[in-house]
C-alpha cells in the first residue's frame, strides 16, 4: 500500500509512542531485570555485572562521534549480530555498549572491534574522561557561536588516553554547548566548553518588516536593550524597526531566535568560554553549577588549539593535585578558587566576577582568604 499523497489521512496511525523497551532487551537482561547484585570494571571499557541468579553480563563500552552515518550504524549492527545476539545499546553520553553473557565472548568481541580501525575506541568507564556530551554547532543550527562536532573531535583526539584509561582521581565529565541556550545542559559539567557571542545584534532594516513581529523582537530581550524605532531603510524610506542599546546587551542571542533580521554571530566576536567545577551526581557534595574561568577563546578551526590546550591544562592540573574521589569542583572548593587560578595559571579577570542577577551570592563576604600571587 504505502503512503498515498492524494489521501494523506488514510489509515493514519498516531500517538503510538516508541517501541516497547522490553522488545529490545537481550536475554540476559530480560532474565535478570532487577536482580543485579554488583558490578566490576574488569578493565577500562569493560564492565561485568553479576546477578543474584549467578548470571553475568559483560559490557564493552566504546566511544562514538554521536554524528553517525547509516553505514556506520549498519557496521554496529554487524558487530552486534556476530557477538551479542543482535542487541546493542547507547548510553546517555553517546557511548555504544555491546553486551555478552559470558567471559569467553569478551575477547573475540574486543578483537573484532580493534580490527575495525579507529572506529570503536574502548573506554569511558570509571575514573576517566567519558565521551563529550555536545550539540549541533555549524552542522545544523542557526544560532551557534562555535562549532560542536569539530571542537569535540579536536579535544577528544588530545584527551584520548584519558578515555581509554582510568588514571584520574575521579570521573571527569566534559560537555560542549555551542550557544547560551545550552541544548546540552553543560552547566553542570566538570569542564564545560561554551560558545559565546561578543558583538550585539545588527539590525537588517531592509528585511525586518517581512521577517519579524516588532513587539516580539522587543519583548525577546531579557535586558530591555531593544526599543522600537523609526529609521530609514537603504532606499531612504521611513520604516518602523528596532534599535539596540549595545551597552545593555549580554549577547544571549535571544533576539535572533525571535527575529531573524537581527544576526549577531561574527568571526572575531564569537568564540568559546570555559566553565569548570560542575557536577550532577549527589555523591558526597550536592550537585553544583560550572563556573566561568576563561571568558573567551577565539574560534580557530579546524583544531581549536587554544581551547584544546585550556581543557588539557585544567584536566592535567586537577589530575596532578586532587585527592582520590575529588571531582574538579570539589578540588577547587577545597583549595579555594584563588588557589585554583594560581595553580592552573589561568589569568583572573573581572569577567569571572558575577554582575548579573543574584550576583551577590558569589562575592566573598568573609575575612577568610588565602594569600596567593594575586595579592600584590
Amino acid at each position, binding site marked *: 500500500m504505502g503512503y498515498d499523497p492524494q489521501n494523506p489521512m488514510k489509515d493514519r496511525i498516531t500517538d503510538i509512542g516508541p517501541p516497547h523497551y522490553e522488545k529490545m532487551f*537481550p536475554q540476559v537482561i530480560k532474565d535478570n531485570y532487577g536482580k543485579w547484585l554488583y558490578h566490576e570494571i574488569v578493565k577500562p571499557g569493560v564492565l561485568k555485572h553479576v546477578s543474584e541468579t549467578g548470571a553475568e553480563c559483560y559490557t564493552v563500552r566504546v566511544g562514538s562521534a554521536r554524528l553517525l552515518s547509516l553505514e556506520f550504524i*549498519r557496521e554496529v549492527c554487524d558487530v552486534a549480530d556476530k557477538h551479542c545476539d*543482535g542487541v546493542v545499546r547507547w548510553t546517555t553520553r553517546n557511548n555504544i555498549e555491546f553486551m555478552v553473557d559470558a567471559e569467553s565472548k569478551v575477547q573475540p568481541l574486543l578483537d573484532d572491534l580493534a580490527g575495525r580501525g579507529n572506529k570503536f575506541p574502548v573506554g569511558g568507564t*570509571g575514573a576517566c574522561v567519558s565521551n563529550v556530551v555536545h550539540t549541533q554547532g555549524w552542522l545544523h543550527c542557526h544560532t551557534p557561536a562555535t562549532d560542536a562536532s569539530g571542537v569535540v573531535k579536536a579535544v577528544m583526539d588530545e584527551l584520548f588516553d584519558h578515555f581509554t584509561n582510568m588514571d584520574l582521581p575521579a570521573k571527569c565529565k566534559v560537555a560542549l554547548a555551542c550557544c547560551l541556550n545550552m541544548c546540552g545542559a553543560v552547566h553542570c559539567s566538570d569542564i564545560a566548553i561554551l560558545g559565546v557571542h561578543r558583538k550585539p545584534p545588527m539590525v537588517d532594516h531592509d528585511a525586518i518588516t517581512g521577517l519579524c513581529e516588532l513587539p516580539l523582537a522587543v519583548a525577546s530581550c531579557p535586558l530591555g536593550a531593544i526599543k522600537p524605532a523609526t529609521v530609514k531603510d537603504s532606499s531612504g524610506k521611513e520604516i518602523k524597526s528596532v534599535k539596540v542599546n549595545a551597552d545593555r546587551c549580554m549577547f544571549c542571542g535571544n533576539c535572533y531566535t525571535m527575529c531573524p533580521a537581527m544576526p549577531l554571530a561574527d568571526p572575531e566576536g564569537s568564540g568559546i568560554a570555559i566553565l569548570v567545577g560542575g557536577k550532577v551526581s549527589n555523591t558526597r557534595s550536592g550537585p553544583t553549577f560550572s563556573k566561568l574561568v576563561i571568558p573567551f577563546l577565539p574560534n580557530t578551526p579546524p583544531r581549536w588549539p587554544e581551547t584544546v590546550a585550556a581543557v588539557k591544562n585544567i584536566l592535567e592540573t586537577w589530575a596532578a593535585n586532587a585527592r582520590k574521589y575529588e571531582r574538579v569542583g570539589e578540588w577547587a572548593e577545597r583549595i579555594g578558587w584563588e588557589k585554583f587560578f594560581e595553580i592552573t595559571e589561568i589569568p583572573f579577570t573581572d569577567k569571572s566576577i558575577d554582575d548579573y542577577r543574584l550576583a551577590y551570592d558569589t562575592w566573598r563576604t568573609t575575612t577568610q582568604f588565602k594569600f596567593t600571587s594575586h595579592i600584590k
Partner: protein
Amino acid sequence: MPKHETPLMDELEKGPWPSFVSDLKRQAEKNPQCWDIVGQMELSFKDRMTHWKHGGIVGVFGYGGGIVGRYSDVPQQFPGVAHFHTVRLNQPSSKFYRTDILRKLCDLWERRGSGMTNFHGSTGDLILLGTRTEELEPLFYELTHDLEWDLGGSGSNLRTPACCIGKARCEWSCYDTQATCYGMTMKYQDEIHRPAFPYKFKFKFSGCANDCVAAIARSDLSAIGTWRDNIRINQDEVKKYITGDNVANGGGIPGKGEKFDIQKEVIDLCPTGCMWMEGDTLKIDDAECTRCMHCLNVMPKALRPGVDQGASIMMGAKAPILDGAQLGTLIVPFIKMDPDNEFEELVDVIEKCWDYWMEHGKNRERLGETIQRVGLPTFLRVMELEPIPQHVKEPRSNPYVFWREEEVEGGWQRDVKEFRAKHAQ
C-alpha cells in the same frame, strides 16, 4: 567522488578519536547530499560562522512537534542541503536496540533523508538529521506503519522523557526507571505531540542519586531513586574490601594503586559522618545518612540500597537562559513508584503541577521560573504539600514575609477613625 575541496574538514580525519568527517564521506557514496554537508561545513570552518538559516515551521499533520525546520543560507552552492529538517524519534527507554529494527530504520532513512543521524540528541531522542519538506509525510507514514515507531517532542510541549539504564543492568536502581519512563511517555502522547504548555517541560528518571541522566540539572520534573530504611550491609564483603580481596569501586578508580583504606576512602568522605568501625564491623547510623551513594559506589559488593524504595521528586531545573540556571528543587521527599497502580502517586504530582502551570505560567516561562516568580511557599500550597524543613537548605534570613490576610488574627480591615480616637495626629 568528493564534490568539494575540503582541506579543513579533511584535517579532522586524522587522530585517534572516531572521525565524523570520514563517516560523512562514507555515507556520501550512498547519499550524495552528504558531500554538501561536508562542503557547507568547510565553508563555515573558513568563515568561522554558521550557514544555516532560521528554522521555519514544518511538521506532519496533526502534530505540533517532533520536526525542527532548517534551511541553508547558501543553497545554490549546496543544493543537497537546501532543506535540511531534523526528525526527532522517540527513543526506546534506556536506548537498547535490536539490530533488525535498526536496520529497517537505516533503509528507511537512506531513502527518505540524508543518511546521517545523531545517536542521540541531548534530550534523548534519536535524531534523523536532514531531509526535505516533501519527504516528511511519507516518512511519518512508513515510520508508524512499518516500524511502529513514533516521533518525539519539540516546541512548547512535553519533551521526550528519558531514563537511566536502571534495573536492566544496575544494582542501585531504587525503582523501575524504564517502566516509569515508558508509562509516562504513553500516558502523555497528546502532551508530547501537541504543544499546549507555556513552554517546554521535561521528565527524566534516574534510579539513584548518581543521577546518570543528569535529571536534577535539566528536567522540570525529575524522579531520583532513594530509600527510607537502612543500607543493607554484608559484613563479610566489607572485610574483603579491607583485606584487599575485593577491589574498591569495582576497579573503576585505581588511583595511584595505594592499598584501600576504609577510614580514608569511605568513612571520612561520608558527608554526614554517620559511619564508623567497631572492630572489623562497619556501622552506619542510618537516621543520619542522606543517601548520597558514595559508600555504595566504593563498595558495591558490601553495601546495597535499603528495601523500602521509592523516589524523590525534584522540580524546576533548567539551563541558564534567561534568569540563570536552576537545579531541581526538592518538592516531594519520598513517593512510592508503583507500576501496579500505574504510578498513581507520580501522576498525581504531575497533574497538579501542570494544572497550575498551564493556567499561571507565562509564555516561554519554564516551571522553575514560575516557581521563583510566585515563590516556593505558594507553589507548595498549589501542590497541597505541607512545608517542611527538607524544602530548604536553611531558613530565610530576611523578615519580608508575605503574610496572607486569613493568617492574621482579626484580618486586615481596620477603622482608622477608631485608631485616631486613641492616637492624636
